[in-house]
C-alpha cells in the first residue's frame, strides 16, 4: 500500500512542478522602499496566482509596506531572508471580518503556505495611536483594546503551513486559527509585547495543528485554545524562560 502511495506521489511530483510557478513581487509593481503602500499590487498578485492554479509569490530583502491582505488557495508567500511585510498602520487599512481586524487573513481557503526567513511586522506602536485617534474623534465607538488587529488570522481553512517566518510586533493576538485543520507551524520566532493580553497562538475549533521548533515571546499567553481544538504534536517549542509550550 505504502509503495503504491510513493509511486503515485512520484508520478504527481513533476505535474506539481508544472503548476508551481514562481513570481517575483516586482513583476506586479511591488516595491520594497518601506514607504510605498503595496496593498493593491500584492493583493492583485495573490488573486492572479490563485486564479491561475497556484504558485509562489517571492519577496526578496526589503520592507514592503502594505495594508491588510487576503491569502488565497494554493498560493505560497515566500518571504526570503530580509524581506518584511510591514503593516500599514492606518486603522482602516486592515482586513475587517465579523467585527475583528487582521493584517494577514484567509477564509475558506486551502493549501496556503508562508515560508522563508522573512518577517511579518505589525507596527503595533503606530497602530494603537491611530485607533485611539479615531475613537477620540467619535468615528469609532468601541474601546481601543477590542479593536487591535490580529497579525495573522485563518478562518475555516485547511492545509496551512507557516515555516520560518518571524511574526513580530502584533497589535493584538499574533496568530489566530478558527475552524482550521491540518496546520503546520515550524521554525518560527514569534515576538510581540504591545498588547498585555495578546496571545501568541489562539485556537478555536481547530484540529490537526502541529508545532515544531517555535519560540513564542509574547506579553499574554503563548498558546490559548478552546476545548474543541486539538494539537496533534508539539516539539521543541518554548517560551523565553525555556519552558515548553503547552
Amino acid at each position, binding site marked *: 500500500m505504502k509503495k503504491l502511495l510513493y509511486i503515485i506521489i512520484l508520478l504527481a511530483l513533476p505535474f506539481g512542478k508544472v503548476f508551481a510557478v514562481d513570481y*517575483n*513581487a*516586482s*513583476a506586479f509593481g511591488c*516595491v*520594497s*522602499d*518601506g*514607504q510605498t503602500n503595496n496593498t493593491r499590487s500584492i493583493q492583485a498578485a495573490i488573486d492572479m496566482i490563485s486564479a491561475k492554479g497556484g504558485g509562489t509569490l*517571492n*519577496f*526578496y*530583502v*526589503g*520592507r514592503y509596506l502594505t495594508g491588510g491582505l487576503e491569502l488565497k488557495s494554493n498560493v505560497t508567500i515566500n518571504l*526570503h*531572508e*530580509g524581506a*518584511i511585510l510591514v503593516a500599514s498602520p492606518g486603522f482602516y487599512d486592515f482586513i475587517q471580518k465579523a467585527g475583528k481586524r487582521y493584517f494577514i487573513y484567509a477564509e475558506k481557503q486551502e493549501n496556503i503556505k508562508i515560508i522563508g*526567513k*522573512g*518577517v511579518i511586522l505589525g507596527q503595533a506602536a503606530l497602530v494603537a495611536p491611530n485607533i485611539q485617534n479615531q475613537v477620540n474623534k467619535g468615528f469609532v465607538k468601541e474601546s481601543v483594546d477590542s479593536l487591535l488587529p490580529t497579525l495573522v488570522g485563518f478562518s475555516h481553512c485547511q492545509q496551512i503551513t507557516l515555516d520560518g517566518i*518571524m511574526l513580530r510586533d502584533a497589535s493584538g493576538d499574533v496568530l489566530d486559527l478558527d475552524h482550521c485543520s491540518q496546520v503546520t507551524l515550524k521554525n518560527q*520566532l514569534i515576538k510581540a509585547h504591545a498588547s498585555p493580553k495578546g496571545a501568541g497562538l489562539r485556537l478555536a475549533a481547530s484540529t490537526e495543528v502541529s508545532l515544531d521548533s517555535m*519560540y513564542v*515571546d509574547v506579553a499574554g499567553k503563548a498558546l490559548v485554545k478552546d476545548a474543541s481544538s486539538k494539537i496533534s504534536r508539539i516539539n521543541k517549542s*518554548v*517560551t*523565553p*524562560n*525555556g519552558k515548553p509550550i503547552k
Partner: protein
Amino acid sequence: MSAVKRIVSFVALLACSIGMLQAKDYNASFFGIKSNGTTLNTTSIQRAIDYISANGGGKLKFYVGRYLTGTIHMKSNVTLHLEEGAVLLGSTNINDYNVGTPNNALIYAKGVENIGITGKGVIDGQGREVAYNLMDLIHKGIIEDPLDYDRPRNNRPKAIYMRECNNVTIKRITVKNSADWVSVYDQCKDVLVDSITIDSKAFWNNDGIDIVDCQNFKLLNSYVDAADDAICLKSHDASKLNENVEIRNCTARSSANGIKFGTVSAGGYKNIRIINNKVYDTFRSAFTIATPDGGIVENVLVDSLYAYNTGNAIYLRIGARWNKGRKGAIKGVTMQNIYIEVPAEKPDAGYAYEGPVEDNPRNISPASIIGLKGQPIEDIILRNVEIVYPGGSNPNYAFRGVSAKELDAIPEMAEAYPEFSQFKELPAWAFYLRHVDGIQFENVKLIAKEKEYRPAIVMDDVKNASLKQVDYQEPGKKGKKQLVLHNSTLKK
C-alpha cells in the same frame, strides 16, 4: 630619443603652465544650459566641459536653479562649481545615462587629471525613480538583467564615478539619492574629498563613498548618511591596492557598516589612517575589515572613533571567497581611544532601505576578530577602548556554549560573505577571537548593562595575547569567569 622626450616634456610643462594661466570661470548660461529643472542639459553641459578643457581649463559655474542632465563626462583641467542653491539633477530616464558601460554614472570621469567638483550646491541622482524606470524596462524585456533580490543588478547609475584620475578635488558639495553606489574613486591618485555631505537612502546598495585601489587619498570633515556602507575602502584589482589613505573628522551613518574595508578585497590596503570619526545609527559594524579575496591589509591606525547605536562594534575577518589561491592577511591594526555603544534593538529601524533582519536566531553579537586556520590575523592592538553592550542574552532563544566541543563546532565559514552576524550565535558577549597571533588589550573596559549567559571574551587558537587592565562590568556577576581560553595562550 631621450632628448626628444625631454623636449616633449618641456613643451608639455610649458603648455601646462600656460593652461594654468588661462584657467577661467565660465557661467553655465554661456553654453545655453538652463536651470528650469525640465530642460535636459546633457549635451550643453558636455559641450561646456569639452570647450573649457580644450581651451586651457577652468571652472564651469552653476548658479541657483535646477539643472536636469544625463551622464556628463569630466575632462582634464575642468572643475564643476555648484554655487549654493544649484542642483545638478539626474534624469529619471535610464537611457540618458551611459548604460552598457560598467559603472555608468551621472558624473563620469576616466583617465583625466586636475578635475574637481566644488561649491555648496547639490548633486541629486533621483536614484529611486531611475531604478524604478530601469526595473520597468527590465520587465518589458528591453534591458536584460538577471536581477539581484528582485532589484536591477546592472546599469543603475552611480552619482559620481572616477577611474584612473589624478589630482581630484571634491569640496563642500552635497550628493543625494543615487541609484547605486553614491561616489566611487577607482585607481585614482592624489584625491582630496573635503567637507562634503552624502545623503543617500534612495535605493538599495547605496554605498556612500567607495575608495578603490587609490593612492594618496584624503577624506576629511565630511558627513555620510547612506543606505549601504557609509565609508568604504575596496580593492577590485589583485595587482593594485589602497595606499596612504586618510579618513579624518568624518561622521557616518549607514544601514550597513560605518567604516569598512571590503567586501571585494583583491589587492589590499596599506598605510591607512582613520582618525577622529563618529559613527551612529548603524545596522552593522562601526568598523570592519573584511579580506575574503586574497587582499593584504597592513599598517592600519584607527584613533579616536566614537560609535553610538551601532549593531556591532568591530569585525576583522580573513576569508577565502574569491581569493583564487592567494592568501589574504591582516597584519598590524592599532585601534585606540575608542568608545562604542551597542543597543538591544535594531539601530537603523525606521529608515527607508534599512538593513535586513538576518542571521537569526542570535543574541547581540560580540566584536570579533577571526582569521583562518593557519592564516591568523596578526599584531592587533586595542588600547583605551570602551564598549558598552546591552547584555540580556537569552540562552533559550539562541545558545552557544564554551565547552571544547561547542567551540570546535563553530564553523570556519571561510567562503561565506564576511559579516559580523554570519556565525549566528557566538559564545562571548564582548569579544570572540579565533585564529589570531599577537593581540594586545590595554586599558579596555567592557560593559554589559544586563546579565549575560556568555563570558565576555572567548579566545580560540589565539597566540601571544596579552591583557593589561581589562575591566569587565556585568551586573550581579562578580567573580564570573569572563575569559575563556581554548587552544590559546596568554603572554606572560
